């Protein structure tokens, strides 16, 4: 049921289109500039013909590739660890006494509710206090702290949806707790686990504000790009950006489809 309101819909539609243009302009610009570089002839701007030069330069840029590798490692480790932790926290929340569960949940959610700058500098100071040198490990910890709430949320929703009866039925049939977990609960939670892990990976791969505090000399891709951009224009950034956009678009699409499937099954 929808009441017709052509004028209202037109106005809202215009805002929506303007919003989409504002949101996508930066993405489109980057992709376009990766194929058509800007040229200037006596100050007049023009576009060079189509070329894959930036992509070639990218492949040759060892610094960027090293940072990319770091980012992939960090994202992989952080999202896997977050998945395990989030599962543990979710089981704790549904099984422990409510007071304890809420206490745990509040602490777990904090880094996602606070501005990243707070999470970043508090970890920086804590690492410093215990004389733990900044490096790959501190980056991974920083990412885990930030990601766990997101994965926890996804996993918990699914777990609560499954309800206790499934677990009880399985335990009733004589399965041990571990068997119940492996054979009954985890398979049921697969969509939530996969979309949680993908989400975690995407956030970790892109994380900038916390990483700036906890990274040492070994840095992730966003930090490397940030450093390069401060110096000036590097054409291969456009190429890299386009590739990253493509990959994240695919991952996001996958998450979206998974969660929609989950929602439909739930309803």
């Amino acid at each position, binding site marked *: 049921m929808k009441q017709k*309101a052509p004028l209202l819909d037109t106005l809202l539609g215009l805002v929506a289109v303007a919003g989409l243009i504002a949101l996508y302009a*930066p993405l489109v610009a980057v992709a376009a500039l990766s194929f058509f570089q800007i040229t200037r002839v006596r100050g007049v701007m023009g576009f060079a013909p189509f070329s894959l030069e930036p992509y070639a330069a990218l492949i040759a840029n060892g610094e960027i590739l090293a940072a990319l590798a770091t980012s992939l490692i960090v994202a992989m480790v952080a999202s896997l660890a977050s998945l395990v932790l989030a599962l543990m926290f979710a089981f704790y929340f549904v099984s422990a006494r409510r007071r304890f569960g809420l206490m*745990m949940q509040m602490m777990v959610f904090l880094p996602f509710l606070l501005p990243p*700058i707070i999470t970043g500098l*508090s970890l920086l*100071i804590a690492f*410093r206090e215990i004389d733990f040198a900044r490096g790959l490990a501190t980056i991974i910890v920083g990412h885990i702290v930030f990601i766990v709430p997101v994965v926890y949320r996804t996993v918990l929703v699914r777990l609560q949806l499954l309800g206790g009866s499934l677990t009880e039925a399985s335990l009733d049939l004589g399965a041990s707790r571990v068997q119940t977990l492996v054979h009954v609960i985890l398979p049921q939670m697969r969509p939530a686990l996969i979309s949680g892990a993908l989400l975690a990976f995407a956030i970790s791969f892109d994380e900038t504000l916390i990483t700036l505090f906890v990274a040492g000399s070994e840095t992730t891709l966003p930090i490397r*790009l940030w450093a390069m951009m401060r110096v000036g224009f590097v054409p291969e950034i456009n190429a890299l950006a386009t590739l990253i956009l493509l990959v994240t678009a695919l991952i996001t699409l996958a998450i979206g489809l998974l969660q929609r499937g989950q929602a439909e099954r739930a309803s």
Partner: protein
Amino acid sequence: MSTTSSSHRSARPRRRGIVRDLLWHGLNLGLPLLFVVLPILSFVLVSFWTLTNGQIVHTLTLANYRAFFTEGSYLQVYLGTVLLSAQVTLINVVLAIAIAVFIFRRTPRVRFLILMSFMLPLFMSYIIKIYSIRSILGQRGLLNEGLLALGLIDQPIEVLLFSRTAIFIALAVLYLPYAILPIYLALDRIPANYLAASADLGATPLQALRDIVLPLGRPGIAAGAVFTFILTFGDFVTPQMVGGTQGFTFGRIVFSQFGLALNWPLGSALAVILLATTLLAVALAGLTLRREHVR
């Protein structure tokens, strides 16, 4: 003999149970305590220390907080940043309400697709978006060149980049999806027959918007506003990248204390103020929500 052995047998599993319970609680409460709560406490503690001649003095004082109010332009930058974040929050929440209502008024089948298309940019690289916004807004950027080529202007607009306006635009573009999502989710929870009922009782679409949709969307609007404010207020990379020397925001000052300025105690104190400000924003948003009458 038999009694001791049986009591022995029953005591051991119980002890093992206690150990297991302790480990279970310890892991679940200890890990967040260790990696979330203690670090926060530690920076609050550091904020009461001072830096003298490059050495941290471990005596508790309010010197850093005093400095915030008296020294340099901390307070001025702080107020300017609050204003900037509030402005971004205001414009983004207004836009997000319009967009969320627009999505809400589509048929259920296309709603998800439209929502996804607004959320997709959220997952796109943050740093690259800033970089791209910079290349669009620059004095010789795509926007200026485009306007010049179209003959709409004859001089490049200079305030577009490295200005407060640039930070405003960039923050608004970067954080718009964060406002849309909670508002839309709140609208999505409105029972479909409420709109049927209001129309049935004679309400025009605008009246339904005023009486049903917006009041019931208010928790989402408050959440969207809080998200936007917290994220824009705490962002220090965007102002640095597009604001240049003109755009000195509070977040940048905090960050610089851990970088070039290297005054961790002062940086911590300023961060405590930043944190308190965001908590205040959350509390304010909570106040605007009247008691919810759940069905």
